[in-house]
């Protein structure tokens, strides 16, 4: 069964790159979306191809499939796949309830409003739970943004961003300390500090100066007030 599946997806990818402007591959692409969902894989190219074909023949559009594509695209953040998909979906379709919800969720993620995101996601569990791996993908995105921003992040900020608290959070942090180069520190106040790995974005002194690189004029260090 595994090898058969392998062959089907190989063929679909080939179709998309060799003969994409072809209405006969719509059902193959739709099956492929379902397969991406169930096997937790992802193909932007194939999904854009399908959205294009829906654009060419709006009567064939399947709303559930498009919803799945958009959720997968959300999971690809920080890449801008979600907006790439929206560019191809007619305005009237975007007015449907499910799409409005997803757009709101995307908005919260784009503007790093993680608390509001998780609140809204909880309300929309029925739409989101069809796609396994959603929570983990968003948590990975949240950590990505925190790593760009913080050298050390306070525990409450991390908790809010990834929507994990208490003992589960302890285990989560332990896992990343063991595997992702995180470290723990006690701060002067009560809360824990999680030290994120050093990279060129939270430690600008590490920035490599390439000829191509964006000229770097100014870096500010921002710190909290002790209460």
């Amino acid at each position, binding site marked *: 069964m595994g090898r058969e599946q392998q062959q089907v997806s190989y063929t679909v990818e080939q179709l998309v790159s060799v*003969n*994409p*402007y*072809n*209405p*006969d591959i719509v059902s193959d692409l739709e099956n492929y979306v379902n397969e991406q969902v169930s096997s937790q894989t992802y193909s*932007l*190219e194939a999904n*854009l*191809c399908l959205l*294009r074909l829906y*654009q*060419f*023949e*709006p009567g064939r559009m399947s709303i559930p499939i498009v919803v799945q594509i958009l959720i997968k695209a959300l999971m690809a953040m*920080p*890449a*801008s796949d979600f*907006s*790439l998909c*929206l*560019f*191809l979906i*007619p*305005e009237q379709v975007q007015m449907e309830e499910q799409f409005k919800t997803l757009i709101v969720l995307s*908005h919260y993620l*784009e*503007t*790093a*409003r*993680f608390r509001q995101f998780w609140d809204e996601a909880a309300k929309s569990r029925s739409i989101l739970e069809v796609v396994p791996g959603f929570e983990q993908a968003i948590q990975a995105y949240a950590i990505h*943004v*925190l790593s*760009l*921003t*913080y*050298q*050390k*992040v306070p525990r409450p*900020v991390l908790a809010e961003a990834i929507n994990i608290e208490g003992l589960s959070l302890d285990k989560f942090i332990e896992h990343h300390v063991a595997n992702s180069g995180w470290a723990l520190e006690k*701060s002067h106040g009560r809360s824990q*500090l999680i030290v994120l790995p050093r990279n060129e*974005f*939270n*430690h*600008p002194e590490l920035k490599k100066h390439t000829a191509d*690189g*964006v*000229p*770097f*004029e*100014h*870096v*500010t*260090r*921002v*710190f*909290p*007030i*002790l209460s």
Partner: protein
Amino acid sequence: MSHPGRVHNPSRYVVPSLDEVLSFTGSAVAEAAQSLIPSASETLIDRSVARMASSYDYDDASLDSRYPRPPSAGQGSAGTDQGYDPNFVPDSVKTFVVHLYRHIREKNVYEIHQMYDGSFQRLSDRMFRECPWPSVEAIAPYVDNDHVFCLLYREMWFRHLYARLSPTGRQRVESWDNYCSLFSVVLHGVVNMQLPNQWLWDMVDEFVYQFQSYCQYRAKLKNKTEEELQLLRQYDQAWNVYGVLNYLQALVEKSAITDVLEREKEGLEQFTATDGYDYEGGTSNVLKMLGYYSMIGLLRVHCLLGDYHTGLKCLAPIDISQQGVYNVVIGSHISTIYHYGFANLMLRRYVEAIREFNKILLYILKYKQYHQKSPQYDQILKKNEQMYALLAICLSLCPQNNLVEENVNSQLRDKYNEKMTKMLRYDDEAYAVYDELFTYACPKFITPSAPVLEEPLTNYNQDAYRLQLKLFLYEVKQQQLLSGVRSFLKLYSTISIGKLAAYMEVDEPTLRTILMTYKHKMHAIDGDGKIIPNADVDFYISENL
């Protein structure tokens, strides 16, 4: 049930699937085989072509005013002003087609270019300002009824019609039919001509333009006559989006142009060095160059559909960081960079867009004077203005003024200083300016699906544009508070979260989300998943004192 993409009847207006386009169909090939195929003696090196090639590249003639214009080719034959007679062939037109036909047979690319770029325009200006050229049936006897020449003539005929007059629905459909025939002949690989790059670029460019124009035409249903609606019903396959895309794709594929470019990188093939011409073997450059230009055509079509990611993928085999055949013909250069830049803007890769707009705007500043007499001059100026508007937008979303060359910058400030100041403010007035500039500079987006020809008949030709504008402004809104952050960060090398929040008049948790948004928006992700920083001003939050 008709299936677009399938040949379901032998109607003239078939919509080809990719397979059909690529496969062999007998009659078209046989006809083409009779025309413009050199006899044995003509396969020897064409001396005039070889001589021209060694001195310089004649496609750069427009940059280089060393080329004298040939003496006027026509003796004006008046009488085409009142009432158009498609069968009347003035002497100057007779001379024109006879000479053009001969030059094509002799593969004298230089002469072909002079006639195509020069004589055709002059005759059009003098005699066909407000009416079409003589019909192809009328001139055919002067050119041995050559099938391929007639297709080429008709292509020019329709292009002239679109440029100077207003095509009817029927003419639009006939033009589609002509492109199908012309591209089919080329794809079957039996064409043996060398044509100037300018002409080959114009063909692809015009093909995409007429497609876009037809989509706009057929989306305006409210005031259509019953006759026009009937035409739309009957010829529902004309300018079908599958057909357009599949022809472009087929040209790319059949020409194997991506292989040529790959081999060239490894030094195994000459292509750029000869601008795509074959000086020695004298083989045809038509399929190869149409394939090359079709990559740019595909980028353009995908931008019109709102699929920026795929558009850029179609262009990927062309390395725009190098000189290449894409910048030999100025129209192709500008179209490539305009669409490349626009796609990057919509993908939030602002630095990349700024870089490319800057380069081409500088180029146009330096060289536009050499194109003043060219028929493309107006287009060049228009695209120039649009790209300044796009550059203004990019710089407002991503201030990187040091990426802009000084002369380009002063032009930019002349045109848009006040508007750029407004755009930095992020209030209602700012959105109005973003709206205005985007609307002015964006491509003419299309709705590709077939029209619904039942009551109520509406005009929906603006729908696609409205969606792209809305999504663009939505992105602008998400970046609303970031310019405020930037100006404060510029003032401080160290600042506490509390103080920054106070200055920005938000509470601490909100400030934290704003700071994270800044980081997210200022770090785009490129095609390989790499993080590309956009910002000239950056920060990090450290919990130490």
